[in-house]
C-alpha cells in the first residue's frame, strides 16, 4: 500500500511547528510528501518557493510551482511519478543487496527491461492512498475552483489503475475554533454524488502548514486526526515552535 500526502499551497507557513519537520515525520512513516505551489502570474513567489522545495525534499517527494491552468496535469504527473519513485527505491535496495550496485542505469538493457517491467506491474497494481491537504488562506480563494477540478481529475486517473486507490481531502486552517485543519472528505474511491468538495469556507488568517501536516499523518496512522490527540502531539512538538 503506497501512501502519499499532496500539499497544495500558495504561501509560507507562519504558525506552528516547521512543515519541513512535519514532512520528515511523514517520510519516516512511509508517507511521501509532495508539494504544489499554486501561484498566478504576478504573485510574488520567491519566499514560498524555497520552503516548498524543502518540504518535499524532507518528505521524500516532489515539488512544483505552477499556475492554476496546469494544476490538474501537475497533480496527476506528480502522483504517478511518486508511485514510480517509491517502487524504484525499493527495487534499488534489492538490487544493491543482490548485485552490490543499486543503480538501474548500470544494468545492461536486457536486464533493465525485466526490472522495469516488474516495476511497471507494481506501479499499476499496488494499492495507493493519497491524502490531499489544501491551503484555504485568503489568497487561495480564487484558485479553489482549479483545485477542485484537479482533485476530480486525479480521482479519474486513479480509478483507471488496476490497483485500488483512495483519496481523502483536508483543508487548513480548520476553522475559527483554531483547529489546524479539517477533514472534508474521508477515504473514498469515487466522487460520484459529491457535488462540492469544499463547503462554504471561512478563509482563515493563519497558515499552520506544519501542524496541519502532522494531523494528516496522524489520520493515516489512526484514522482520526485528533481533537483528542491534539494535546499529545502538540505537547511534544510545541517545544520546537519558533
Amino acid at each position: 500500500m503506497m501512501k502519499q500526502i499532496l500539499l497544495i499551497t500558495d504561501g509560507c507557513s507562519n504558525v506552528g511547528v516547521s512543515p519541513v519537520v512535519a514532512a520528515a515525520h511523514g517520510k519516516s512513516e512511509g508517507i511521501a510528501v509532495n508539494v504544489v505551489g499554486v501561484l498566478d502570474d504576478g504573485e510574488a513567489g520567491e519566499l514560498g518557493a524555497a520552503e516548498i522545495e524543502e518540504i518535499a525534499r524532507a518528505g521524500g517527494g516532489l515539488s512544483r510551482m505552477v499556475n492554476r491552468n496546469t494544476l490538474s496535469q501537475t497533480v496527476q504527473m506528480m502522483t504517478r511519478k511518486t508511485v514510480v519513485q517509491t517502487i524504484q527505491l525499493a527495487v534499488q535496495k534489492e538490487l544493491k543487496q543482490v548485485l552490490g550496485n543499486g543503480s538501474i542505469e548500470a544494468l545492461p538493457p536486457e536486464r533493465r527491461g525485466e526490472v522495469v517491467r516488474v516495476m511497471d506491474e507494481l506501479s499499476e497494481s499496488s494499492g495507493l492512498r493519497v491524502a490531499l491537504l489544501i491551503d484555504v488562506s485568503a489568497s487561495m480563494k480564487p484558485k479553489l475552483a482549479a483545485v477542485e477540478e484537479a482533485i476530480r481529475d486525479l480521482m479519474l486517473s486513479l480509478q483507471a489503475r488496476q490497483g485500488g486507490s483512495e483519496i481523502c481531502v483536508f483543508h487548513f486552517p480548520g476553522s475559527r475554533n483554531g483547529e489546524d485543519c479539517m477533514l472534508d472528505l474521508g477515504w473514498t474511491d469515487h466522487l460520484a454524488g459529491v457535488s462540492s468538495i469544499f463547503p462554504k469556507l471561512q478563509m482563515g488568517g493563519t497558515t499552520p502548514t506544519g501542524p496541519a501536516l502532522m494531523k494528516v499523518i496522524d489520520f493515516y496512522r489512526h484514522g482520526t486526526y485528533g481533537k483528542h490527540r491534539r494535546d499529545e502531539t502538540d505537547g511534544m512538538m510545541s517545544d520546537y515552535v519558533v
Partner: protein
Amino acid sequence: MTTSFKPNIRPGMTITGKWKHARYRVERLLGEGSNGKVYLVLQERDRSYCALKVGADAVDLQSEINVLKLLDKEQGRRGALAQDAFLLDVDDLYALDGREYPFYTMKYVRGSTLSDYLKQQGMEWFPLVGLTVLNKLAELHERGWVFGDLKVENVLVADYGYAQLVDFGGVTANGKGIRQFTEIYDRGYWNCGTRTADAKYDLFSYAVLCIHLHESKRLKALTKELLPQNRSETELMRIVLESEGLKPVAGWIGKALSGKFENGREAAEAWRRLMHTSEPSKQTKLPGWLKGLATVSAIVLATSVALLLYNVFI
C-alpha cells in the same frame, strides 16, 4: 520534461552505443516529446537512416521500450500490411555533459503532421488518411493494445496519404490505466468515460482529432469557456453539427464519441462504407469533399480512383 535534460546532441556528432557499440551520425533534431528528444541519424553499419530517441530517464524510457518490444514480438510478418519492427537498437550513450542517457532507434517515419499535410494537400485527403489511421488502430486493438495518446501531432503523413502513428509513449495494454494522454483528446476530460484503456478510448480521441482538423478554433474556444462539469459529448457534437466539413461524418463521430463502436475494426468498416459513394441512394447530398466535382462522370471517376487507392493501401 526534466529541466536538466541537456544531452547537447548536435548535427554532425557521432553517437556510439555503450553496450553494443553501434555508431550513429546525427543529422538533425526531428522533435521533442514529453520524455525525450528524437533525432534523425545515419547508421554507420549500413548507411541507412533511422530515428533515434534519447530519454531523460532510464526507467521511463525502458517502460516505452518494453511496450515496443512486446509489439514487435507479437506481430507476425505475414499479411498485406507487413510492417518493419518498431525497435531496431536499444542502448545507452555518453553525452557531451558527461552523463549517460538511454536511447533506442526505430524506423524513420517521413512525413508532415496530419494538420500540415491536409493544409498543403487539401482536405480531400482527409477520408483516406482517416481510414488508414483507423486501420492502424484496429490492428493494435486486435492485439489487445490501446494507442492512448492519439492526437494531430502523433500522425505523420507521407506521399499520397500514407499515414503512420508515431510516439508510442501512450500505448497501454487493455484494462490498464492510460499511460500518457493529452487533455482535449481524453474522454475523461469530457466526462464521457474512464481513463482505463480500451478500444473505445482511442475512437473517442479519433473523433476529437476529426473535430480538431476541421474546427480547431471553435474547439479551442470551447475548452476555454466550458466549466469542467459542463464538458460533454453534446458540446462536442454541437461543433460537429454546425460544421460544413464534418457534416458527412457527423453520424460516425456521434457514434465514436458515445462509444458505440466496439473496436477499431468496426469503426474503420463504418468509415469505409461512408466513403463508398457508389451507393448514392443512401445520401441525399454530395459529401463536402466532392463538392468541387461538377459532373456525374467525375463522381464515377473519383469512386474508381478511390477504390483503386483502397486496394493499394488495404
